[in-house]
């Protein structure tokens, strides 16, 4: 399996490449006032409005720094249901089997998207499941909002 690596703070995380449609450079995002924590706003993706989730804001509480290595990843969690993720230092790939990942000893209830972990030369990498970034209710609300804003 191919994984895209990115960073939250100093730690490294991985997204399954089969969940991703495209990796884009960081772009201007239209903000949504009163949006839940982690929602940076919406973007116009080739005529389709997608909600944008800032992973750094969601997990650490501060927005991603605008750098060249900070990118927008278009993720598809179900057919036709896509959203954009802003991830810092998303410029490396990792080739691993699903069996190389082990469940961590500690799980965090507030962050169900944190998955199993693996190791490489530079340390620990944790698998992020984009399907679990939000509960279904928040997800539905997001798409409603994105549609209305478009």
């Amino acid at each position, binding site marked *: 399996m191919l994984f895209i690596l990115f960073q939250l703070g100093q730690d490294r995380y991985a997204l399954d490449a089969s969940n991703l449609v495209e990796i884009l*450079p960081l*772009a*201007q995002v239209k903000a949504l006032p009163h949006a839940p924590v982690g929602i940076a706003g919406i973007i*116009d993706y080739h005529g389709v409005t997608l909600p944008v989730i800032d992973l750094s804001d969601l997990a650490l509480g501060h927005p991603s720094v605008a750098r060249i290595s900070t990118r927008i990843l278009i993720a598809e969690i179900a057919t036709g249901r896509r959203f954009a993720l802003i991830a810092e230092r998303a410029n490396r790939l990792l080739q691993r089997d699903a069996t190389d990942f082990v469940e961590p000893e500690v799980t965090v209830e507030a962050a169900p998207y944190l998955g199993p972990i693996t190791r490489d030369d530079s340390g620990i990498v944790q698998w992020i499941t984009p399907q679990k970034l939000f509960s279904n209710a928040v997800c539905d609300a997001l798409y409603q909002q994105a549609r209305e804003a478009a």
Partner: protein
Amino acid sequence: MKLHDCWKQIGTWGDKSCPQLAEAVHCRNCPTYSAAAAQLLDREVDATYLAQSALEIRTVRQTVARDTDSAVVFRIGAEWLALPSHLVHEVGVLRPIHSLPHRRSATVLGIANVRGALLICISLHALLGIDKAPVVTSASRTLVHERLLVVGHEGERLVLPVDEVFGVHRFHAEQLGETPATVAKSTATYTRATLPWRDKTVGLLDEQLLFYSINKSLS
């Protein structure tokens, strides 16, 4: 931003005195080099960059129709026709066609020797009902060569003598037009679609129907 460009001083593009070169062979394999690349990617971006990439993401993608299909265009009498390229095995020069005894059919001309194989020759003129009358050649097109089209369908090979072969014409399926229903000629029966070619309209032959009729005339 200041980069320590060791690759230009002691590395591959420098005097090659770096001790790590013995192991890495080329600077592109060295972790110092990729760390410098990562450092370049960590540059902060400005509003122009964000606006520019937002514009690129916003642009609705245009699908371009490519010429994905191809057909061999040839002439029968005054009619320009086409057959899908995958059916045409070769275009040969005219060879003697030996008639078959006790065959009265106008469609079956006889057999011809194509590279040692005896193949049955079918007259498209007779099958499609087109006169063999020679077209008036203009001054610019004086040289016209008759050819033999060797075609294959479901493992069976046949020879179709034609009056002229243009060559392979590439097109996209969207370019195909409907066969005009008002044309009562038998050519129209065998035409699957019309294809614009140069300033003319070429009839793309329906291979299923064509080979069905040929097989029927052979039995």
